[in-house]
């Protein structure tokens, strides 16, 4: 089974056999890697502070700098395809890229300055993102994002989409929120 992990000092660790053994495959720059996502066993992204984003197409053997034009830390990813992705970041940052050169769009109008931690789409136009202080924002189309009424003031750290309308969000102090209508 294939898996990976990231950490300080640009560490990227890959396993191809269910963690019986691992390969240390760091990025050239000395960075604290914050978030990552892989499309498949070969193609993926990692992010760090100051808009740093690196892409691999060969299972982390090499990395290409495709950083975004922002000072925000890049935290979360949603990949529609290997080169069609949205990212979240600190200070309310969301951007996207739709081409293999990873040309980043202007920062989206997210209507928040909270640090966003992760993002997901239920289908092409409908997505949501989570962040600090219970922030949940929603968009139809990905350009303009609206705040949703939060059920908590705790920082929200992770999300997972179960099926087309259902998602689970987790956060500090044991918070678990279940949404059943695309957010």
């Amino acid at each position: 089974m294939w898996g990976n992990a990231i950490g300080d000092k640009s560490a990227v660790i890959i396993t191809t056999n269910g963690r019986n053994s691992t390969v240390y495959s760091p990025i050239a720059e000395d960075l604290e890697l914050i978030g990552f996502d892989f499309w498949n066993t070969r193609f993926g992204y990692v992010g760090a502070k100051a808009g740093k984003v690196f892409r691999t197409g060969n299972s982390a053997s090499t990395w290409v700098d495709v950083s975004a034009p922002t000072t925000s830390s890049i935290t979360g990813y949603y990949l529609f395809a290997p080169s069609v992705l949205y990212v979240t970041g600190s200070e309310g940052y969301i951007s996207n890229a739709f081409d293999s050169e990873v040309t980043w769009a202007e920062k989206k109008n997210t209507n928040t300055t909270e640090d966003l931690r992760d993002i997901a789409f239920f289908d092409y136009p409908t997505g949501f993102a989570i962040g600090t202080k219970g922030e949940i924002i929603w968009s139809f189309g990905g350009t303009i994002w609206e705040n949703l009424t939060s059920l908590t003031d705790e920082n929200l750290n992770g999300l997972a989409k179960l099926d087309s309308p259902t998602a689970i969000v987790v956060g500090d102090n044991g918070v678990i929120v279940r949404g059943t209508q695309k957010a």
Partner: protein
Amino acid sequence: MREKIDNEYPENLNSVDFWDEYLGFISGDNGLTLQTMDGGKA
């Protein structure tokens, strides 16, 4: 509709992942791992 799910463990929860619409895992501080087999309803 969104609802908070009862959770007796106060640790910070950091990530969540699902194998399908039923089976999922949540990881948190202090090595906490939670499992659901009904899509997070319990």
